[in-house]
């Protein structure tokens, strides 16, 4: 730890003590002057007051008497001298006591100041401790300061919120790296095995090589798809740019893009698009629509209809995509939104699904403050409904 010149605690203590001492001194000085003024500057009034109490006439005060220093002086002058001596004694005694008391009080105040400053500054030490410990592996720690909501509490809470954001960002990164390195192993294994087995064949034909190249090409396409989707998932954690996006137009564009693939499988689209402006990140919303429709097109049985509806609600918009297919049990429906979840047949993987499509749909919807839900209609198949708020989205994590 870096050495500090003078600790904040000491500085606070010294300032307390200094201010206390200065004010105490000032107070003593002021009272000295005031008392002095009262006692010294109206001597005539004092004298006549004393004479009145003693029943002395003013003539008597004017009569002469022998002075202690020799010679003659009036009684009044003598009394005035006595008065001056009493006043001087009084003031001296007073200031002496006052300064002793000030000295004692100053020492006590410095001591108390030291303790109080330590107490007030303890939260800062806590914050510093957490900040010093904070690293990628300890980002889950929080200061979680108790006590009144004062400036230090606010600082601690702000710090906690920053840690939470950092943790979310780190977590998204870590998850991306872990998922990518895990999910890319399968296409890599396909490529490596295919190439090694084919090249090890001494009688390899050009047809074999063509088959190898085509297998490798689809494995590459799959790797790209996985990386793409994982990136979208990682980015969906935090919305950066939001703008007003016409959900219906977005869907119409995507329908146009997917029509060739759908027609190849004999699928047709049934559209019901109402104007529905939503606020969000255009690129992410495009991925949401793309994955939702791609999922439906991939799993719809040949020669069926994919129904797509965009509706407007007072608080936002809904997008519903439904495709025919087998009945999905209600307990399986929530799992559809999990990452890398594949339904219990190998069909899905032969179709090249990475098991990320609906996870992206859910993540993007949530990032926008919306939600995604799935239902399996009575006749079978899957209907996914996404709700998106029209208002400016609020940050999902914090």
């Amino acid at each position, binding site marked *: 730890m870096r050495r500090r010149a003078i600790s904040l605690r000491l500085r606070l203590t010294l300032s307390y003590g200094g201010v206390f001492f200065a004010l105490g001194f000032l107070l003593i000085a002021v009272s000295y002057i005031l008392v002095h003024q009262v006692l010294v500057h109206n001597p005539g009034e004092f004298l006549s007051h004393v004479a009145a109490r003693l029943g002395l006439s003013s003539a008597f005060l004017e009569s002469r008497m022998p002075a202690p220093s020799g010679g003659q002086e009036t009684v009044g002058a003598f009394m005035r001298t006595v008065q001056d001596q009493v006043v001087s004694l009084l003031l001296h005694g007073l200031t002496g006591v006052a300064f002793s008391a000030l000295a004692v009080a100053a020492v006590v105040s410095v001591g108390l100041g030291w303790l109080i400053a330590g107490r007030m500054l303890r939260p800062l030490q806590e914050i510093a401790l957490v900040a010093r410990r904070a690293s990628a592996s300890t980002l889950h720690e929080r200061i979680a300061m108790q006590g009144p909501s004062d400036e230090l509490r606010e600082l601690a809470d702000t710090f906690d919120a920053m840690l939470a954001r950092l943790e979310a960002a780190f977590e998204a990164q870590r998850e991306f790296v872990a998922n990518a390195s*895990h*999910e890319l*192993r*399968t296409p*890599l*294994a*396909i*490529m*490596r*095995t*295919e190439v*090694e*087995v*084919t090249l*090890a*064949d001494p009688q390899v034909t050009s047809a074999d090589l063509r088959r190898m190249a085509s*297998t490798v090409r*689809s*494995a590459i396409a799959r790797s790209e798809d996985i990386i793409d989707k994982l990136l979208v998932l990682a980015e969906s954690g935090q919305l950066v740019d939001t703008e007003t996006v016409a959900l219906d137009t977005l869907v119409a564009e995507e329908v146009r893009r997917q029509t060739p693939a759908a027609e190849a499988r004999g699928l047709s689209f049934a559209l019901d698009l109402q104007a529905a402006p939503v606020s969000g990140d255009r690129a992410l919303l495009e991925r949401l629509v793309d994955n939702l429709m791609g999922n439906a097109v991939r799993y719809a049985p040949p020669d069926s209809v994919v129904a797509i509806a965009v509706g407007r609600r007072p608080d936002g918009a809904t997008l519903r995509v439904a495709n025919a297919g087998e009945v999905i049990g209600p307990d399986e429906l929530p799992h559809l939104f999990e990452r890398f979840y*594949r*339904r*219990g*047949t*190998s069909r*899905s*993987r*032969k179709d090249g699904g990475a098991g990320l499509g609906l996870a992206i749909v859910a993540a993007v919807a949530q990032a926008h403050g919306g939600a995604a839900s799935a239902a399996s209609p009575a006749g079978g198949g899957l209907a996914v409904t996404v709700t998106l708020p029209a208002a400016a989205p609020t940050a999902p994590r914090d």
Partner: protein
Amino acid sequence: MRVLIIEDEEALALAIARGLRREGMAVDVSLDGADGLEKALLTAYDVVVLDRNLPGLHGDEVCARLAGERSETRILMLTAARSLRDKVSGLNLGADDYLGKPFAFEELVARVRALSRRSGPARPPVLRRQDVDLDPASRRAWRRNGELDLTNKEFGVLEALLSASGAIVSSEDLLEKVWDENTDPFSNVVRVTIMTLRKKLGEPPLIETVAGAGYRL
């Protein structure tokens, strides 16, 4: 040697099968866990190459069932999870070996061979009986120091007979060990192969036919 591949990635399963067949193994492929388990329980495979992350019936479950009910079949688990914990848990389920994806195909072949030596009684890497030597790893066989030029099936039959160490091997066993599931069990492929193998082995005759039981070397 009879191998079953249970792997839901079709491209990978077919590539492995092609490679192993070229190594002279009789290879069957199953693309999902339930079907694979059924096959493995029906046929005495020497080695099952099992993908761990199977949809439907999970590879772990297939592994546990197989290890419990087919203890002579060796299981090589193949998986994308390469952490130490995954390896330990896989081996604890009854897998005999563990290989992370992606792998070098050579290594897969070597491991499958090593496992097959351990299916049944332990076998030496080079098989020898009388004046015949056979090295499964290099796929070469010799008689009286003269190398034999054998087809995959002939090689497989000879390997099965040598592995039996003098015990009788039935045609059904040979069919199961050397040919894959696409072979018609009522065909005479075994008889024909034994015949050509005898011819290549030359004199004096080594393979003995035990009437009604099978063959012996």
